[in-house]
């Protein structure tokens, strides 16, 4: 298994592999940062603006990760999967949902808010856009757990015929957010000329902390 590309999103900049591809001029609200970055870096997709912040983060990361990948032609639809970790699950949208049901006199739960109160939905948005039908899972972990991530992805490659996996960390809690995504592909499927490194705990840790 090889890591063929990485994307990292932080509150003031976005990295594609080692390159800073977007930087906020001044501190901005997470939603504004994500919307501006999406408009600048990705093809139009109106559904993006309806997503909650966690899904926006994961989706933006995946769009950058896959923008020069040829997954749909390279692999069958069920040969690509997703494995994500995060610490706060959907706490941000959970709080928004709570606000819509706090008062008995003003009890109007919003369907479009409620639908995002499961962390798997961020994966669903990525799967819908990219027609990915492979296995997918989100694990809640107090911190970025290299061993857990490695094990889960390896199991899917070993047992579920996966040949590619979008995997990593997508986390938001208040104004703090962070995305670290990797595209992992099976050794046989990767062109020798392509820059890559082995998918193992040591390399994952090194790339995450760079």
């Amino acid at each position, binding site marked *: 298994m090889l890591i063929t590309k990485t994307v990292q999103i932080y509150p003031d900049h976005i990295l594609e592999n080692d390159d800073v591809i977007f930087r906020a001029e001044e501190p901005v609200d997470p939603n504004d940062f994500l919307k501006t970055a999406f408009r600048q870096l990705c093809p*139009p997709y109106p559904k993006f*603006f309806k997503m909650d912040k966690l899904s926006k983060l994961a989706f933006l990361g995946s769009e950058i990760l896959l923008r020069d990948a040829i997954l749909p032609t390279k692999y069958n639809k069920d040969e690509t999967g997703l494995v994500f970790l995060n610490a706060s699950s959907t706490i941000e949208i959970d709080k928004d949902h709570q606000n819509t049901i706090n008062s008995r006199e003003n009890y109007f739960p919003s369907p479009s808010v409620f639908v995002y109160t499961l962390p798997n939905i961020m994966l669903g948005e990525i799967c819908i856009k990219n027609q990915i039908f492979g296995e997918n899972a989100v694990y809640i972990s107090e911190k970025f757990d290299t061993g857990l991530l490695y094990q889960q992805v390896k199991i899917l490659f070993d047992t579920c015929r996966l040949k590619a996996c979008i995997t990593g960390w997508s986390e938001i809690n208040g104004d703090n957010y962070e995305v670290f995504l990797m595209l992992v592909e099976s050794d046989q499927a990767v062109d020798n000329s392509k820059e890559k490194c082995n998918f193992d705990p040591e390399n994952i840790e090194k790339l995450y902390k760079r």
Partner: protein
Amino acid sequence: MEEQELIEKLRKEIIQQLNLEDLKPEDIDPDAALFGEGLGLDSIDALEIIVLLEKNYGIKIEDPKEGKKIFSSIRTLAKYIMEHQKAQ
């Protein structure tokens, strides 16, 4: 409230409630289909419009079959609200 005035209000409310970020009120043709080919709304948006009707206009849609007719366009939605408010 006149029909045209209500249409203007609904255009703004729908853009805000459904997070239609890239649309301006004048972009929504009051006679275009809200679902499918027209504005391209989905089933969650339909639920959101049902909540909007209840929250902003005090109208509850009891019969789901009614929804298809009422939600055909902004104009049919405005007519339904006006008729319903007149009856109240």
